[in-house]
């Protein structure tokens, strides 16, 4: 007989006036190779069809299923129940607006972030469909891709002390995004222009260096290195600003 798992899951449906936030316990028999994706779907199909949670690719690629699993933000799709104790507690990610139960609104948060960081290539060059592509060094392309691997699951934001204290802090995902464009030769923005976006408490100076962002990142992105990189770059920029003003 395999283990009986006891899952305590946060329940609250803001659209139902009868609903009060509470924890609800579900018991489920563990099966071979069970992930939280399998477990939560089984609970929904067999025990409580109203249970809200988000999955999309269920393969660790899209970032939909970020949640707090036994106290730690992570992706539910690639969390295997055999790596967890028999008592499992699931909570929605903090910082993001709650939609219901384990489902949160990461979309609005990230869309606001794109707007703030102007997350696109800034260039005056026009595309010429008759010309060959501009050349790029392969290593440079690989370095950019390395930072573009962020899946916007929100785990780094949910684990961030500063983000939990102040709503206007951009967080590791946003700083990583800025670093991605800063190293892209196709982007014409000057360091001064980047400084205007992140050279403040909402950006690079807000981080308290608790390192949780990098600890919980399911894609193992070098988030703290990026922060260090930006601080060095921006430090020089702010010095230059002092001497030229």
């Amino acid at each position, binding site marked *: 007989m395999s283990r009986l798992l006891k899952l305590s899951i946060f329940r609250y449906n803001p659209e139902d006036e009868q609903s009060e936030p509470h924890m609800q316990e579900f018991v489920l028999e563990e099966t*071979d190779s069970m992930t939280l994706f399998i477990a939560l779907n089984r609970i929904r199909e067999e025990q409580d069809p109203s*249970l809200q949670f988000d999955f999309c690719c269920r393969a660790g690629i899209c970032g939909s299923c970020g949640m707090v699993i036994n106290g730690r933000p992570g992706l539910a799709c690639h969390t295997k129940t055999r790596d967890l104790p028999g008592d499992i507690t699931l909570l929605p990610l903090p910082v993001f607006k709650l939609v219901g139960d384990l489902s949160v609104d990461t979309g609005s948060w990230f869309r606001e972030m794109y707007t703030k960081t102007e997350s696109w290539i800034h260039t005056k060059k026009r595309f010429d469909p008759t010309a060959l592509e501009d050349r790029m060094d392969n290593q440079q392309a690989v370095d950019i891709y390395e930072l573009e691997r962020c899946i916007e699951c929100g785990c780094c934001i949910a684990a961030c002390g500063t983000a939990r204290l102040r709503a206007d802090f951009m967080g590791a995902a946003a700083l990583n995004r800025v670093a991605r464009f800063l190293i892209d030769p196709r982007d014409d923005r000057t360091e001064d222009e980047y400084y205007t976006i992140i050279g403040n408490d909402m950006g690079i100076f807000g981080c308290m260096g608790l390192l949780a962002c990098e600890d919980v990142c399911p894609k193992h992105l070098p988030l703290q290195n990026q922060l260090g990189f930006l601080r060095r770059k921006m430090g020089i920029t702010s010095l230059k600003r002092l001497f030229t003003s």
Partner: protein
Amino acid sequence: MQTVYTDFLVVGAGLAGERAAVEAADAGFSTICLSLVPARRSHSSAAQGGMQASLGNSVMGEGDNPDVHFADTVKGSDWGCDQEVARLFADAAPIEMRRLAHWGVPWNRVVPGKSIYYKGGKQFEKIEAEDKEGLIMARSFGGTAKWRTCYTSDGTGHAVMCTMDNRCAQVGVEVHDKTEAIALIQDEETCYGVIARCLRTGELWTYLSKATMIAAGGFGRIYPNTTNAVICDGGAHTMCVDTGVVPMGNMEAVQFHPTGIVPTDILVTEGCRGDGGTLLDANEKRFMHEYEPEKAELASRDVVSRWMTHHMREGHGVKSSYGEHLWLDIRHLGAEHITGKLREVYEICTSFLGVDPIHQLIPVRPTQHYSMGGVRTNKDGAAYGLKGLFAAGEAACWDMHGFNRLGGNSLAETVVAGGIIGRKIAEYLQGCETEFKTGLIRDTAACQQARIDDLITCANGSENVYRVRAAMQDALHKGANIFRTQDGLETCVASLQEVVARARNVGLRSNGRGVNPELAAALKLEGQTKMALMIAYGALMRTESRGSHNREDFTARNDRDWLNRTLAYWKHPDDTMPTLEYEAATSVFEIPPGDRGYGKSEIISADVTKE
């Protein structure tokens, strides 16, 4: 009820939808994409391998051009495609790849000099040219004469999706995420937008538009084992089926991918085989080269999937508690390659299987992967049957894939078709005036509200949503799989007719309030079962084998009688069967039907002439 107006409304915010939206926005039109999830979570982002375009930069792609790409695509389709469309696609693909580079995609680039590569488990050497340094690199994929697949490691879809969504933000395309379209507003002549359900609150919204596009991806989730994301459930297709006037094209053409991992059916990219990975059986012996001496593991997906299934039937499968499977071996590619160019594969294997592919074999089996069928459109992307309705990407049957799609051609199709059709839509919108009939809008909304109320109060019955869905998936799995027979398909059709009847009697167990997920599943269930019947019935009627459609009782490709496309309608909501019609597969033959060069070659010829 809130009402939103926009010039151009896209149902779906994956690559095809966003690419078309960018064209319309660039032409000055207001554009909104509706999406079940934030745009970057779209299933486009899960595409690992790459995009085919005949840039010919790599030494292994030398001499490549749109003609060769076109020929590969037509052969891949088993002559089931529209050759005019395949030509449009092959010609535009190189320009689109360069445009994506301009917008910010970090394509892997040519590194000049000596490097090694693998084919069929053996090591070879190649020397990339100095004068191509820094141009977009390509890798090998199945069914192609040249290395043509442009890539960003094995996260191509993700990288292109990020760039496309950035571009949308830049040009002012709005994405309304957590929004699910549930019905088209239409009068059987023109489409005026959709009724949608907000997945933040559960409220219904009205979206009015001059042009509406279905770009919601595939519908693999109507099968039980699929590589598709959970959002690829055909919900948007069901809106079109419900109109009675918009046909679905070639629904029986369902692609099974050779390398879904066991047991979760998560895909590992064809790039594994493209980069030299091999398939092994229970004795850890290679077998594909015996069936296909020329192409071996790199024949097209329909062919490889079929031989794998055949080989397991012959008793060479690996037994496991999840049924039989085979092995994918990439160990010889080495740690650097696997953790670099195949990193997603490495992560999938370690995270989901506990297998280290540098040292261990990967358990794989063919699993449902791609829907060649979909909303039938003309070459401009305009849906048959309704003015103002368009479709693109996997959701559409445009139809450049015919009965089998080549790897790397779907991700390329999203942006290429999105671009071509987006420009056509911008032309359509130019000078287009519409009158919105308030009565029609009110009636459509009221009808949807009534459906919801009936489901909540169990007015039509209390059949369990998830059980009916499982019955549908089970019927398809048993009867409309890789190998098909008359008996199997007849049984499948009969059980699906029962399932359709049950789907009409579904009622919720929960209270249906707010963003109720049971309600979301229930609203699309009847439409899904109708689509399942279109697959099974279309397959039963098509008495030949072509591409992914493989009849054991009709093994020849019959060009004399079946060089055509199935159009499936659900003409009246109370019908118990779809209505099938047929049209010529292509009106133009640049390449008359012939041998593909892989797979079987039993052909009943047609009398067609080259244009």
